[in-house]
């Protein structure tokens, strides 16, 4: 059972969190977005071995945030609020 640091609430049990996807997966707007670009936004994920930047949501407080963690060791490297405020 991992401990994730919510930027707002501090370290909490992983069961209180939901995974929100890769950080930096920017949504392309418009009905004319090339279909490959849209498919990449919808479905293509990096699945990196090692450091990953991910969006998580702490369901207890409802806040989404960016967490960097190592997908091999499960070590949490950093977490910060979406806007950058409330760094832990």
């Amino acid at each position, binding site marked *: *059972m*991992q*401990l994730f640091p919510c930027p707002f609430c501090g370290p909490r049990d*992983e069961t209180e969190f*939901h995974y*929100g996807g890769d950080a930096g997966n920017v*949504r*392309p*707007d*418009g*009905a004319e*977005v090339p*279909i490959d670009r*849209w498919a990449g*936004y*919808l479905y293509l994920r990096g699945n990196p071995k090692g450091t990953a930047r991910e*969006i998580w*949501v702490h*369901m207890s407080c*409802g*806040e*989404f945030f960016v967490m960097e963690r190592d997908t091999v*060791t*499960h070590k949490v490297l950093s977490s910060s609020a*979406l*806007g950058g405020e409330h760094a832990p």
Partner: protein
Amino acid sequence: MTASRLASGGSAIDRSRPIRFSFDGATVQGFAGDTIASALLANDVAVVGRSFKYHRPRGIWGAGVEEPNALVDVSGNRATPNTRATTEPAREGLVAKSVNATPNALADRNAFLDRFARFIPAAFYYKTFMWPDWHIFEPRIRAMAGLGKVDAGWTASGPADQINHHCDVLVVGAGPAGLAAARLAAGASLSVTLVDDQQTPGGSLGHRAGEIDGRPASVWVEETIAALAAGGHLVLPWTTAFGIYDHSLIGLNQRHFDGRPDTLWRVRPRRIVLATGAIERPLPFASNDLPGILSADAALSYLRRHAVLAGRRIVVATNNDSAYEVAEAVAEAGAEVTLVDIRRDGMPATSSKVRLIKGRTPAAARGKLRVEGVTLDDGARLDADCVLVSGGWTPTIHLFCQARGKLAWSEARAAFVPGDAVDGIAVAGAAAGAVSLSDVFAGAEQAVASLSETKAAALRSTGPEATDGIEAAWPRPGSKGRIWIDYQNDVTVKDVELAARENFVSVEHLKRYTTLGMATDQGKTSNLPGLALMAGITGRTVPEVGTTTYRPPFTPVPLSSFAGARAGALMAPVRRLPLERAHRQSGAVFQEYGGWLRPAHYGGAGADADRAIADEARRARQSVALFDGSTLGKIEVIGPKAAEFVDFLYYNTMSTLKPGRCRYGFMLSENGVVFDDGVLVRLDEHRFVVSCSSSHVAAVHARLEEWRQDRFGRGAVYIHNATSEMATLTVSGPNARKLLETLDLDLSLDEADLPHMAIGHGSYAGDEVRIARVSFTGDRSYEISIRADRAEPLWAHLRGAGKAFDAVVIGLEALMILRAEKGFIVIGKDTDGTTLPHDLGSEGPRAKRQTEFVGRRSLYTEEASRGDRLQLVGLAVPQGEAPLPTGAHGIKRSDGRLRSQGFVTSSYESPTLGRPVALGLIERGASRHGETIEIQHLGKLRSATIAAPCAFDPAGDRLHA
């Protein structure tokens, strides 16, 4: 074997408290402090179980968690199948039954299987998959699978406690290393938790010689425990650390024997000291599995703790120094002892009481139901009623490996020992390969020194020290006879050789092919000998073969510990309506719908539910119906960008909605699929209320929050889920307005003031009410929302006033019929994970919208534009027929084959129309109204005619009636 209880001694037993229990139907006498195994041994019960595959007779091997043979099903106040007799305390009235034996261990009727052993080789089970036909073997294999039997009638006295715990240092194992580490850590002002799986602490100090700081080991153990208790540290006996998980979480299972279920501890220590000891290995010789052949260290433990002498004529066979103390001790206790050491020189001295044969190896044991002697490799025959063996020691490094620790091979120890240090974890004592008490204490000091600057006083071993001489004695390929490696799963040297011949040489393949180490003991005595043999067969070193992965749990943990209170009604708690009590008084029959406990109908328990539901649905159309719609989502969206926000979230343009008005719309996922539907209310310029489906409230809320935080910003929009703050009472039907007019709600119900799809604000008994004219029934409807805690008087008032109009209270089932008559959909029932909004007939926004919204791009893909998409339709059946089964498929024939062209999603008998109504998703359905298609369900074909989804009042006149 003639084992017996000595007249005196036994540090663990209380001779003033005799107890009786039963084993395989026979009464066994013992003392408080006995384990089932020690009591059986004291009563000279040789055969205590049968092996898994060949049903070989098996006796007690060990004295702890490593036990592969002595498994029993225990019933009484603590029913446990497949528990180790060596770790289960004997208790008055306990009933133990040997496993895998019928009628009992001694006279097992499947014992004949051993004579067919050559026809049941390794991987026999897998091979039946390949040839000739698995189904020939399946019934027999299934019947023989498993060991003990679960007592299905037994239930725990209550939920297991689960405790979260924090400390500076968690020490696992209360042997010399663990006690020393705990003592030193406590002396360095760290908070300590010390756990041990035995009842009494001390570990090997309970039966091995030792003197610490000039005091006998037993005195030092007591002093140390007393000092820990006095210092406020936590000492948990009967507690097994079964697993290390991410971020240094350790799971402990604490056993109780007073009827309580076990306790699960979730510990997050800052540092961990593993002082988990080592497990003695068997020696490889033919028939080394006979009852009466025990671990030498276990025999010493039974002698010292339980005053049980394992035999009268004892052969001690060893490859290392540790068995010498055992040989001397059993000789001292009166046994005639021959010590066979495979080594020629470098051994400890022996006394005159022990006959020493050096440089010889046991080749085979003799005997049938118990050992009768040993034949050595030079042909010499030794008679014996008990053989004690020591094949060396395997450090217990399970937890270290679970924490991703890497092992290092020690030639000197003939074992794997912990390699590079793992952050936050220290290993001490025999688990780290230490043998002498001086080395053990040095390791404990090192473990604690790494945790704290402060130093506590060092410990000194002042007595005789154990020595570490060993010469590896691994099973060798080509050996004669049947040499057991894994006792419990019946894996022999020949099985490992067969695996190698068939090229299953990787250690993970070896395990799965032969089942080596896959039994309930997880190979605690067998894994290392097995992979050392594979190394020998394939010309590799032991570290080149490597170990299999160590996984939790170290020993079996009851599922009740993991479940804790999450059982029965607390497994998945339902959400409850504020008016539940009132509904129960009205005869409501409750069911769970999307996590909510809601009235299905009001026919009362034992009523004909179908008739009650039909009656409610019919009467609802006649005058007026009351319905509790409190579960409907009420999520407020507030802020300067609220209008822009709802435009983005909805498929439909919502910003054009006027304050005080409502609009129906869809929310899509980014892949275009319809995620939820419902009515959006605009309260004022910057304030909306999202009415989402009852079971989608949490998901819709999360989705709104995600877009708010990710796209719009915290200052632009604020979201508040008010679903449970307010109850929503629905009044629907031709007389709905007349009923409401009898209440003083302090607002105008005129068509001009409160038309369909508008809201009004009023009050009831001083509380604000919000009335929305939206309809899920197709009839004129008013949804009245009021503070949840004030809803009951309003509900009672509506019920009372409704009598004059023959009002009917309807449950969710009747509502489902009413909405299906109207062709109104339920997301997830009438849609699936591929349904796009235009499949439901909502084409406008897709064709016209110019602004961005969730899922937009996905509506213009090749897939979204296919001509043969499944579209929402109504389905009518011929006069007099029963409703179509939900889930039945529309069928078309092509090339003589039947192919699905969609399916029925909702289907009911409509009491108002006097015929069935159904909704379905059918290929090109929207353009095929009037066409009759075949419907297939469970092999039966029927016909149905495609129609518009709405079967009742298609013009919608009743909304305004």
